[in-house]
């Protein structure tokens, strides 16, 4: 280990080191330029679960918007000033008192990045990817959510050109909350369906 390495470099995983090496080669060979790499980083950093929370909160207070969100996710996102520009389709699935949805990508880590940014690490783990399809109820229990009796669990494996997001149900006892307060209840995990928004999440 060279003493010139920074702390960040010495703790980097072998995968990160490999990507750095590939990036350096691509730049050196002129396949990529530094501004392109920066643009790509800015693109991802401009997106976050806060976008999903905004879409959900608007759908909770505006039935017409909810209809649009469920029928044309990209149009709904564009209406709230988001840029859903991405070749993949963006489909929002609705949780109801009878149906609870859970999203996974068993083949890799497909996720509505154009809206939500990078997926959480657990979403990319082998454990989540293999167990979410086989024992979705056990996985949700580990996230602290157990669907009530009589609720059907529907798993969406995003195997191809569609990226899915869950529209969770509005938690009870939130009638007095405004759109922004509602958005704060919507967690990243609830947009994947691993959990559900809870009214208590407002308590600081």
């Amino acid at each position, binding site marked *: 280990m060279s003493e010139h390495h920074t702390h960040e470099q010495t703790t980097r995983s072998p995968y990160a080191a490999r990507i750095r090496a590939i990036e350096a080669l691509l730049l050196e060979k002129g396949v990529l330029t530094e501004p392109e790499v920066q643009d790509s980083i800015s693109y991802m950093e401009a997106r976050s679960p806060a976008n999903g929370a905004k879409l959900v909160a608007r759908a909770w207070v505006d039935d017409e918007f909810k209809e649009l969100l469920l029928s044309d996710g990209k149009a709904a996102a564009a209406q709230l000033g988001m840029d859903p520009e991405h070749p993949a*389709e963006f489909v929002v699935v609705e949780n109801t008192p009878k149906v609870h949805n859970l999203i996974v990508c*068993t*083949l890799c880590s497909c996720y509505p990045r154009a809206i939500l940014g990078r997926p959480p690490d657990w979403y990319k783990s082998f454990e989540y990817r293999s167990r979410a*399809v*086989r*024992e*979705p*109820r*056990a996985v949700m229990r580990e996230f602290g959510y157990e669907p009530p009796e009589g609720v*059907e*669990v*529907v*798993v*969406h*494996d*995003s*195997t*191809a*050109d*569609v990226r899915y997001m869950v529209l969770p149900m509005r938690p009870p006892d939130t009638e007095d909350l405004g759109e922004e307060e509602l958005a704060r209840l919507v967690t990243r995990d609830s947009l994947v369906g691993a959990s559900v928004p809870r009214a208590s999440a407002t308590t600081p």
Partner: protein
Amino acid sequence: MGRDLSYGPGDRVRVLPAEKPGHVRTPGYLKGKSGWIEAVIGRFPNPEDLAYGLAGRPERNLYKVGFRQADLWDDYEGPAEDILYADVYEHWLEPGEGGTA
């Protein structure tokens, strides 16, 4: 979109139990399993070619296919109503038994 569709919503289908080397978007746990067409998603460049820098032509029909969880896993924990959806390209499907669901 929607040209030359071999299947429509409600049709029973089976995922081909085929092996194909390289990049495929059909997960192994669905191979040989039976389900139904839930929806027609559209036509997309074939990802099996795109992955190797090819154009992916002709585009392929993509379907949202539904499966009963109990048909996928012998030891599935949960009610018979639980469902799994996956998006499967037409060339990975064959007509299933029982015709239209």
